């Protein structure tokens, strides 16, 4: 069973951490890409969910870069994971094959949903604010 985050979520978190820790609150694309050890071409893919969520804004030009836009105090790790990897479908239990009978009730539905809630609750109880280095 795979229970793994994508690398993109980890990079997004690191990006927030780097920007929050910077002295002038603004980090240029090349510097940020360098800190994350990724290419400047890939950086926008990492940053897009963060700007879409309104946590970060970007400006272009010689003095441009990425700035933390919102107070991250209320943002949880679940918010971040869902911003990058998509919102969980609450009703879904199984990877369904083409022959799936919509009326079939999965016997593992209840325990699986309970287990999944436990994971999501943990993520939701983890505040990004407590994890990033704010200067």
């Amino acid at each position, binding site marked *: 069973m795979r229970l793994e985050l994508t690398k993109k979520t980890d990079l997004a978190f690191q990006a927030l951490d780097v920007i929050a820790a910077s002295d002038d609150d603004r980090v240029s694309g090349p510097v940020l890409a360098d800190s994350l050890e990724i290419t400047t071409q890939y950086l926008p893919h990492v940053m897009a969910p963060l700007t879409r969520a309104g946590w970060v804004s970007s400006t272009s030009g010689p003095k441009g870069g990425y700035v933390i836009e919102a107070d991250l105090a209320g943002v949880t790790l679940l918010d971040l994971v869902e911003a990058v990897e998509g919102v969980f479908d609450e009703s879904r239990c199984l990877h369904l094959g083409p022959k799936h009978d919509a009326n079939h009730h999965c016997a*593992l539905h209840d325990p699986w949903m309970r287990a999944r809630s*436990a994971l999501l609750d943990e993520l939701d109880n983890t505040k990004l604010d407590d994890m990033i280095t704010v200067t």
Partner: protein
Amino acid sequence: MHLDLTQRSDLALQALDVINRADGQTVSGPDIAGVLRISPHYLGTIMGPLTRAGWVRSSTGPTGGYRIAVLLADRSVLDLIEAMEGAVDREICMHGDPMQPVVEACALHEPWTRSRDALLDVLAGTNLGDVLSSSDNTMHNGPHSADPSTGSAR
């Protein structure tokens, strides 16, 4: 992040339930496949991991089939899922670059591990016997398993 089970785990539980109800008798593959409404060929791919993990014993020949080899009440949902879908690699945090030493590199390792353990703890703490008895009504309401005793309790 995908948090889905595969349908194989659910089919495996249904197959175990069918075999378990035979009270130690052998149940043929085609009979199980019929109840599960899947092809005998596909059933083979479900029973393979269960046989290898020692949950059932299989025999061949005209009277061959599957016999239960464990007490389901002693097994957890996690045991079943890991038998069917492989053990959870607790060291790996991220789905990504296989060249990356993820354990050190992942900034989210600690909270993610904690969250994942919360999920695994629930699965490990849920007994298969309880799951089967609580899902009795929903799993056995088809034409294959009409219970003649229903409604005759006095």
